[in-house]
């Protein structure tokens, strides 16, 4: 008798608990964010393993197999994503392009974060005239569309990959400077920075070991917000034929050349375009989510 009463009551408890656990998990990790993380992971894997994945060399010509449609448009499995106007395998080119675009975006993000944060710390440390100069630079950078600055630099100096990456690294540094400066000024007023200073620590120790770790989360969120911008900028310039130069290839490059074949072979253009959109979308979603989790003040 007693077991009859106990059993039905005790059963739903673990069920409810698991349901709550799933719900809690989904609240902390929304499905869209999980998909975004999955896609970013996939892109990074592809970028790292590019040489192992590509079925053909990305420059290998196959003049008898030009403009072959991909599998999902009744093509053959020989070229899964079809082939382009010179019979080059679109999948192989896509993989190599992903590696190039990821490399540029990573390099540029690191440059821009380092440069911007250092300038912000300098401004906050010295104040006075140094700060005025830095802020004037920030105003200048923010007042011109960066695409135009990038185009003029490319016109004046010509194009080489290291220069191009460095140039992309100048995009958006002013945001890190603004944030780093503001937060460092605030941190300098706080007890911990003062305590370390009283203990006799030099500026590099105070900023490197104490202030920077405390403001890092906001800076990391800013990185996730500028990363897609750099991908868009790089692909835009490459699309115009002014970014990554052939024989190298990037996602924007593929769209730019595929555009000539938009009527006969739209897949050449649509595949890299889809990758660009999914990647920027994923990073934006993950970035928004990170921002909400790490730093409610940035909203």
């Amino acid at each position, binding site marked *: 008798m007693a077991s009859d009463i106990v059993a039905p009551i005790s059963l739903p408890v673990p069920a409810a608990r698991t349901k709550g656990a799933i719900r809690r998990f989904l609240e902390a990790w929304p499905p869209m964010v999980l998909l975004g993380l999955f896609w970013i992971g996939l892109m990074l894997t592809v970028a790292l393993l590019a040489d192992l994945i590509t079925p053909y060399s990305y420059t290998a010509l196959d003049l008898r197999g030009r403009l072959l449609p991909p599998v999902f448009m009744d093509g053959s499995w020989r070229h899964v994503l079809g082939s382009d106007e010179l019979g080059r395998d679109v999948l192989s080119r896509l993989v190599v392009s992903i590696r190039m675009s990821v490399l540029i975006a990573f390099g540029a993000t690191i440059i821009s974060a380092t440069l911007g944060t250092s300038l912000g710390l300098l401004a906050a440390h010295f104040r006075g005239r140094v700060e005025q100069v830095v802020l*004037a630079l920030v*105003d*200048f950078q923010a*007042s*011109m*569309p*960066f*695409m*135009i*600055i990038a*185009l*003029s*630099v*490319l*016109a*004046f*100096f*010509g194009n080489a990959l290291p220069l191009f990456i460095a140039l992309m690294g100048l995009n958006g540094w002013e945001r890190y400077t603004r944030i780093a400066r503001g937060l460092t000024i605030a941190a300098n007023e706080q007890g911990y920075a003062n305590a370390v200073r009283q203990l006799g620590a030099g500026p590099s120790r105070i900023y490197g070991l104490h202030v920077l770790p405390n403001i890092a989360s906001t800076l990391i969120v800013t990185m996730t917000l500028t990363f*897609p911008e750099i991908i*868009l900028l790089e*692909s*835009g310039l490459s*699309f*115009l*034929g*002014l970014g990554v130069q052939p024989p190298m290839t990037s996602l*924007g490059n593929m*769209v*730019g050349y595929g*555009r000539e074949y*938009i*009527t006969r072979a*739209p897949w050449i*253009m649509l595949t890299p*375009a889809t990758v*660009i*959109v999914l990647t*920027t*979308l994923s990073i*934006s*979603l993950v970035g928004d989510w990170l921002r909400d989790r790490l730093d409610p003040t940035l909203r």
Partner: protein
Amino acid sequence: MLRYTLSRLLRAVLTIAAVVTFAFVVLRLSGDPALLIMSVDAPPEAVEAFRKSWGLDQPVWVQYLRYFVQVAHGDFGQSMRDGRPALELVMERVPATLALTLPAFALKLLLGIPAGIYAALHRNRLADRLTMVVSVAGFTVPSFVLALLLVLVFAVNLGWLPSGGAESWRHAILPVITLGLAGAAVLARFTRSAMLEVLGQPYIRAASAKGLTWRRVVTDHALPNAAIPTVTIVGFMVGSLVAGAVVVESVFSWPGVGRLLVVAVANRDLAIVQTILLVIAATMVCANLVVDMLYGWIDPRLRTTRAAEA
């Protein structure tokens, strides 16, 4: 108000000076102009004479000042391709660019702001969710992809509109839509969050509590306050419009300044690039000035306090 205006004007002049300096520095860093223009095996005397006639033998700061004077006189040098004055070449392309950017700007405002306000007033309803989804798509889809998709659908598949060129007003439809849509999405998202923030303020509750109709609360109290941050973003949009025009004009082979810039960069026609850089900088500075003036007009607090600080 006069002091506020003056401080903004001063800042505008400084920004222009910074851009001129930037142009001068990259121009000088990019190599010796004498060697760029004359052939490599030109006799040294000829190179020397060229330097002298263009003042390149002077100290850098004299060259710098001279450059400023030239620019102030509207002398931007000649195009290396056809030898015509660069400013003239750029100016004849301006109307075509305005023909795209002005309607696109209007489209942005007319779509973006009402959509953002509507979404904020119907928070978490279907319309709000839809607006947000579209606006996320708006800034993750690059303009060249959007342009090519529109070409694929409306020019290639349906055959309703031409895919490029500038013969009639019908040629402008796809470029204007491309330019307008992306910005409208960003603007909608921004307007929505500005509006939501204002709607959460105590004075909105006070206004409803004193018995105003919801319509009056929104039009008299919420909208004017949400307008302040929105005006800032509209100022920034001028920049993205210019950058967008570069891409969109290239995709649709529209004979505007953006297309000219891309061709000039590809050919390394420095005089043209430099002229466009300065013209765009002047446009941006004027746009920011207008925004600052609008600020003073929308937000009376700024006329007194901020001007004293600046």
